[in-house]
């Protein structure tokens, strides 16, 4: 019995014609998977969205249970999925009873993975569930936290962690269980570049130290690619589309994968986007006209102000002009989103002011956007939130697009015409009657932009528009934004996506990272 001192060893995977259908869905989430992963192998799992990558990981983690009867479990299974010769589900149960996990799963959303209020308790949670003796728990918690270079003590409150720190804490919780198979489901999709880099380094260190098997799902491959020795591509229609060493798979399928939205190194969409900011042949209408201006602006989020924390951005002077893009860059916690929300008239300035240009404010009582009524705001400044789900207000895609223009008082016939046009333009016709919450990430992003554009605002403010998006959506967004700029709109894009700023930006405002209170970070929408 070495389970309390040593690592139990890497796990091998064998899938035979495996498939899973969720009880709530008609279509199979994944089907016909034949896959062998040797102990210690590191596999990158690719596939377009909807090809069942996350379902396969959940299956490997032993979390999918068809149950006994028809209504018993959470879905229907076919074929087999074995870990070291034992069904994954059984392996999980035995592992919990035996005190050492076989698999460890790290998910995408940092905020939703923290279980407890104190960092140490959160790491200990899995050990408690595996009935590890109390005397062994704290040494293993501390070792796991050291293993991911976690910068805080065990008593540190989890609600003060940034997204990147949360992911590392979740990773510590996973490795404390010494799993022989590490399952990573887009672990860096919601992290900024420094957070991603740190996480990648920690994962590499853990794999090197333990020799565990690893199955990784990621869209943005840069950096992760060096960690894996094999790439497996799931086919959307079932089965495996490609399988082999990264170099071979990318040489043979790179272009096809990129066209399917995967961020394949060497096939990034900006390579086709032409030179950054080609000057338009004709000047955009109203070129350079001042639309919005911040003067000596100090801004904070209401929640932050209530908590007695200092403002995140101070002393900002910036102008949004027609036919120009302003890119606001900076890492998480530097106040990019706060600045954007204040420019967009959603948050009230703490000091200084935001004023609209005479044309934008025409017919209104006040030049300050935060004083405008919602229906006045919607046709003048459009805001695209980082998480599209936050701005969904209707039950169908078509109705969602109609909300803005209707609120702005556009006649019904015109509203319909705008909806039709945007459905086509944003490739959303096939889901026009669907509930917005059921759309894929890329579709939701396109919908959120369409819904804002429908009210024809002169100024467009976008908060991390490319966050977590696949390469195809990225490309489509960039094309659209360039078109809007050429048509005389003013665009503000808050982003830590440097290539986006590269292809858009006339003006770049870089917010510093040396903020006194960097730890605190708001939900993924509004990274302070």
């Amino acid at each position, binding site marked *: 019995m070495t389970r309390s001192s040593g690592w139990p060893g890497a796990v091998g995977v064998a899938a035979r014609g495996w498939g899973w259908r969720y009880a709530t869905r008609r279509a199979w989430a994944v089907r016909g998977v034949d896959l062998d992963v040797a102990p210690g192998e590191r596999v990158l799992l690719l596939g377009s969205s909807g090809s069942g990558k996350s379902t396969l990981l959940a299956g490997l983690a032993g979390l999918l249970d068809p149950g006994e009867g028809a209504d018993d479990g959470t879905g229907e299974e076919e074929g087999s999925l074995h870990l070291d010769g034992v069904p994954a589900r059984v392996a999980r149960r035995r592992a919990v009873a035996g005190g050492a996990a076989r698999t460890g799963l790290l*998910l995408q959303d940092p905020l939703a*993975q923290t*279980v407890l209020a104190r960092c140490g308790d959160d790491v200990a949670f899995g050990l*408690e569930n595996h009935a590890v003796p109390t005397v062994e728990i704290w040494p293993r918690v501390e070792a796991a936290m050291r293993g991911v270079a976690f910068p805080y003590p065990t008593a540190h409150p989890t609600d003060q962690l940034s997204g990147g720190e949360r992911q590392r804490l979740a990773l510590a919780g996973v490795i404390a269980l010494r799993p022989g198979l590490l399952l990573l489901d887009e672990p860096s999709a919601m992290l900024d570049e420094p957070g991603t880099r740190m996480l990648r380094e920690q994962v590499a260190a853990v794999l090197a130290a333990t020799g565990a098997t690893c199955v990784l799902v990621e869209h943005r491959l840069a950096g992760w690619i060096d960690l894996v020795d094999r790439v497996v591509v799931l086919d959307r229609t079932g089965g495996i589309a490609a399988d082999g060493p990264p170099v071979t798979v990318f040489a043979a399928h790179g272009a096809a994968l990129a066209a399917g939205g995967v961020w394949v190194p060497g096939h990034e969409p900006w390579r086709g986007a032409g030179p950054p900011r080609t000057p338009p042949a004709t000047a955009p209408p109203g070129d350079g006209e001042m639309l919005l201006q911040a003067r000596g602006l100090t801004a904070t989020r209401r929640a932050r102000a209530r908590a007695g924390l200092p403002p995140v951005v101070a002393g900002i002077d910036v102008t949004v002009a027609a036919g120009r893009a302003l890119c606001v860059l900076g890492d998480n916690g530097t106040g990019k989103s706060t600045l954007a929300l204040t420019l*967009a008239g959603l948050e009230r300035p703490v000091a200084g002011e935001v004023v609209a240009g005479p044309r934008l404010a025409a017919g209104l009582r006040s030049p300050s956007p935060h004083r405008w009524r919602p229906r006045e705001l919607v046709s003048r400044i459009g805001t695209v939130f980082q998480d599209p789900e*936050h701005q969904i207000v209707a039950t169908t895609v078509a109705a969602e697009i109609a909300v803005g223009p209707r609120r702005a008082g556009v006649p019904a016939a015109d509203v319909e015409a705008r909806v039709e046009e945007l459905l086509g333009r944003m490739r959303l016709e096939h889901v026009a009657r669907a509930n917005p919450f059921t759309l894929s990430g890329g579709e939701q992003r396109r919908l959120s932009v369409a819904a804002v554009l429908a009210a024809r605002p002169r100024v467009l403010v976008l908060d991390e528009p490319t966050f977590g998006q696949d390469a195809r959506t990225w490309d489509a967004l960039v094309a659209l934004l360039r078109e809007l700029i050429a048509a005389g709109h003013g665009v503000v894009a808050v982003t830590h996506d440097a290539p986006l700023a590269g292809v858009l930006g006339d003006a770049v405002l870089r917010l510093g990272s040396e903020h006194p209170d960097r730890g605190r970070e708001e939900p993924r929408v509004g990274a302070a």
Partner: protein
Amino acid sequence: MTGALDRGVDAAAYAARANPVAKLAVGLSIAVAMVLSLDPVTAGTALLLEVVALPWCGLSPVALARRSWVALVAALAAGVGTALFGSGDPQAAAAVTARILAVTLPGVVLLATTDPTDLADALAQVLRLPHRFVLAALAATRLLGVLSDEWAVLGLARRARGLGGGGPLGRLRDHLGRILALLVVAVRRATVLATAMEARGFGAATRRTWARPSRLHPSDAVVAGYGLLVAVAATAAGVAAGTWHLVLT
């Protein structure tokens, strides 16, 4: 290990340090005594004995005022209401006010000095409540903080979409929509959290160990005993003064 508590709370104070179950017992004993009779002497004695014990509870006057002003306002309003519209008897009014305060004060102290994690540990280990429910509820309380941030963002997002404003009816409709949106977000987050918990072995076995053992100490008996003393002394005082009447009969 009391990172979740506010400033103004001294977690090392005698009663604050007690096992949450002991603090619960105090509240329960006093509540039973207060339910049995509604009279100014019983309620007043209980309140007096509680106030006497406050210095050992670790709450600064400011922290206490901040947490109990709602109860204070409610107690006074109920007292004034009784005096004006009820029996008109000032004694009954005093009884109502003192009773509300006597019942809420132990609750205020419990909530202010107890970390939710410690409470859950005590409920599951000392009282042996089913740990699955206790831990699921604990995880949900943490999610509440996340949801309050989401609520603020949803408000901004709706304004950006042109919703809100325009009359009380419009505002009500907008609020309902915002609540609905929050529910959707909450279910999403809860689903991911449940997956993350299960992936770390939660709910797979009936046996589990505890990283933070929650045990009863002699000092917990002192705290719980004081609660019982308050209940008994208050009742005795009421009986002695002849004001004590069993409400249930």
